[in-house]
């Protein structure tokens, strides 16, 4: 039900002559019955907030001691890559926390929790915007600031180093390929939304699948890029290698890394949607596909800024 904003209609119900209905009338106006779950009772309880928070706590506790507890040896080639674990507690907590985070997140998504929007409401200036969509836009606004800060940091450091003294670390061609891949995946996610709206299950699965494959391709190309930089050019987070300074390396890897983390998170959600669509969801209500599309477009637009910043200039 696209963009449905429940609005129960006028407060005083009228009969066909325009007189007020003597018994107050049906408090649901006609069109609220179009809302998929209009007569369902709102939910009040869920264990997943508690468990998800606990999982994140465990993950972060593991990360706090991860660095001193591990030693990564990159070696001369990927075959020589090894990790020494000096203290198993922190790495174990990290892995357990990460797995628990994904599991609790999945269960949260699967839970049948109903939180309807207010039937009557004053919404200026956001009339006509559905509740979850509004929330998604607020979230994306804050994520814009997060990436804005990272990009500002990159610009600030580069300005202080002397703008012209930095040459791009990665090669342009893989970056260009990745740009096309990600832009196409934004297109396929729109196709997914259209398929869902048209109640086309196969089309939805195909489009979601294509988005996931393209996103994975993006990550694969990026992984190859990073492998080249680390093993062929010898530059990584804190290791300078002519002509790149250590901080330039940090800025490149951390910023594109944060973007890659967002892509991975998005793919996790895409897989969740695929699983649900496979079992018949999103035929009556295509909104979750739309919200994922909004997030995916955001990730794509961030890349459109990162590409010139790190690859072209």
């Amino acid at each position, binding site marked *: 039900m696209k963009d449905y904003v429940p609005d129960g209609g006028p407060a005083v119900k009228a009969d066909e002559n325009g007189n007020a209905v003597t018994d107050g009338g049906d408090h649901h106006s006609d069109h609220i019955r179009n809302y998929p779950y209009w007569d369902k009772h*709102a*939910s*009040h*309880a*869920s*264990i*997943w*907030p*508690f468990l*998800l*928070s*606990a999982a*994140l*706590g465990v993950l*972060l*506790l593991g*990360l*706090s*001691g991860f*660095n001193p507890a591990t030693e990564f040896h990159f070696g001369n080639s990927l075959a020589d890559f090894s990790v020494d674990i000096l203290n198993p507690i922190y790495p174990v907590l990290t892995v357990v926390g990460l797995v628990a985070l994904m599991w609790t997140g999945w269960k949260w998504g699967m*839970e049948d*929790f109903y*939180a309807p*929007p*207010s039937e009557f*409401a*004053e*919404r*200026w200036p956001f009339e006509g915007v559905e509740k979850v969509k*509004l*929330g998604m836009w*607020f*979230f994306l*606004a*804050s*994520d*814009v*600031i*997060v*990436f*804005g*800060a*990272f990009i*500002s*940091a990159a610009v*600030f*450091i*580069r300005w*202080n*180093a002397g703008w012209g003294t930095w040459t791009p670390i990665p090669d342009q061609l893989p970056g260009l390929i990745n740009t096309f891949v990600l832009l196409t995946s934004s297109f396929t996610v729109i196709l997914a939304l259209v398929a869902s709206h048209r109640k086309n299950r196969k089309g939805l699965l195909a489009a979601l699948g294509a988005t996931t494959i393209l996103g994975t391709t993006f990550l694969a190309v990026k992984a190859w890029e990073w492998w080249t930089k680390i093993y062929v050019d010898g530059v990584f*987070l*804190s290791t300078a290698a002519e002509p790149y*300074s*250590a*901080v330039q390396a*940090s*800025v490149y*890897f*951390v910023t594109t890394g*944060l973007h890659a983390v967002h892509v991975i998170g998005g793919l996790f959600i895409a897989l969740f949607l695929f699983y649900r669509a496979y079992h018949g969801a999103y035929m009556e209500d295509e909104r979750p596909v739309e919200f994922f599309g909004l997030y995916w477009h955001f990730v794509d637009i961030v890349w459109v800024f990162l590409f010139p910043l790190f690859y072209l200039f």
Partner: protein
Amino acid sequence: MAELPPTTSVRRWLVTTNHKDIGILYTITALFFLLFGGVLALLIRVQLWDPANQVLSGLAYNEAVTAHGLIMVFWFLSPFAFGFANYFVPLQIGADDLAFPRLNALSYWMYLFSGILLGISFFQGGTLDAGWTMYAPLNVPMYTPSIGSTGAVLALFMFVVGVTASTVNFLTSIHHSRAEGMGLMDMPMFTWSILATVWMMLFAFAALLAVGLILASDRVLGSVYFSATEGGSLLWGHLFWFFGHPEVYIVFFPALGVMLELFQTFSGRRLVGRKWVIISICLISVQSFLVWMHHMFLTTINLEIKTLMMATTIGISLPFDLLVFALIYTLIKGRIQFTTPFLFAFGALLLFILGGITGVFLGAIVLDYEFRGTYWVVAHFHYVMFGGATALFGGAYYWFPKMTGKDVRRVPRKGPLRRLLHQLQHGVLLDVPRVGDPAACLRVQPGVHDHPPGRDRGCVHPRVQLLHHVLQLREVLRLRARRRGQPVGLLADGRVGGLLAPTA
């Protein structure tokens, strides 16, 4: 699993997504963190008491100062305010609950577990000791190597994730779930202050999340942002204070909202200049993002930019003037009921005025050069923060009956508790930030109001004398009230008789 178990069960509190329950959880947890942060403050005072004693090691002292700041700003003040926001904003806008109930519960549990992580960090080789502002390059592993330092940074990161969820929730709720016909200008003042707070939070905490991620990357992954000679430490300053300045208004605004409510209720009239108060609140929210470099006057930023920031800082003091005048005029034009919540709110205004004025002086670049690293700065922010906290305590008294269904319990008129309170009142002064010798102050007898003749009787601090004068004045007023046959002390309806207001 969609219905709520009864309130007596533990499970209820683990699974609830109800805004009133979560409000109560926030309030109680925040009070616990107040105690935690307060104990750290006492440790600081113990250390500073006598230059010869060193109770804490240098590193431990720095940990105490850092954790005290982090806990009070992040884990006490804002959550205490948001306990009330959770409880009352849906009621004030006529909504059933917040827009995303599970997300609301998530914010609370993120808050609690992040606080637990911070507590654990003390045991991971010592917590962060770089100050609550965590300046670079002190915050990189070379200079703060303990695992607990990373633990504290990650605890803050988790806290910010929870805050972001809360922000999205309140923004959507206030913009999407208001009762029909309630335009934005019709909303109650507390909800307005929360709306401004969450708009600032949306953009400010995102900046903190970013800078926290970069710091976490430096510490966990080994990147070199903040140790870079190419502006690494200045980068931290910009990113942190871009968050840090809106943050101080994020901390204060809910308390301001409580003051606005209490002043209206207990003066019996609508706020004077209500529309302008709302406009000022909006102006401050926007301007708060334009002043951050006034925290960086002692860096290598060029003078032209610093002067611009001084101008914007003066600019942001102007709407605050309007707010203070509006509050004062509301009292002047009203009939005041001197109830306990009102006294807290009024006291909060006095503290805030003092703190705010000292802040204006700090906004002058050349004065800032002298004040930096002195108690002027410490006093400024403690006065405004205590102003905020005092207002929130007023809110606690005000809303306690509604949240619990019970009356606020009175202190008994006789008995050992009363005697102890009396002795404390007349003996010990809790001041900000220093005392003389508190032990000497305790030797003062209750009921004896002459101040000691010389300046060397132990309890010599001028503010103690001031308190004695204030208490003398109070006794004079009470005597006057009694002679007139007027009631004195706490009355049955919550007002305090025997002060300046004529009672019936």
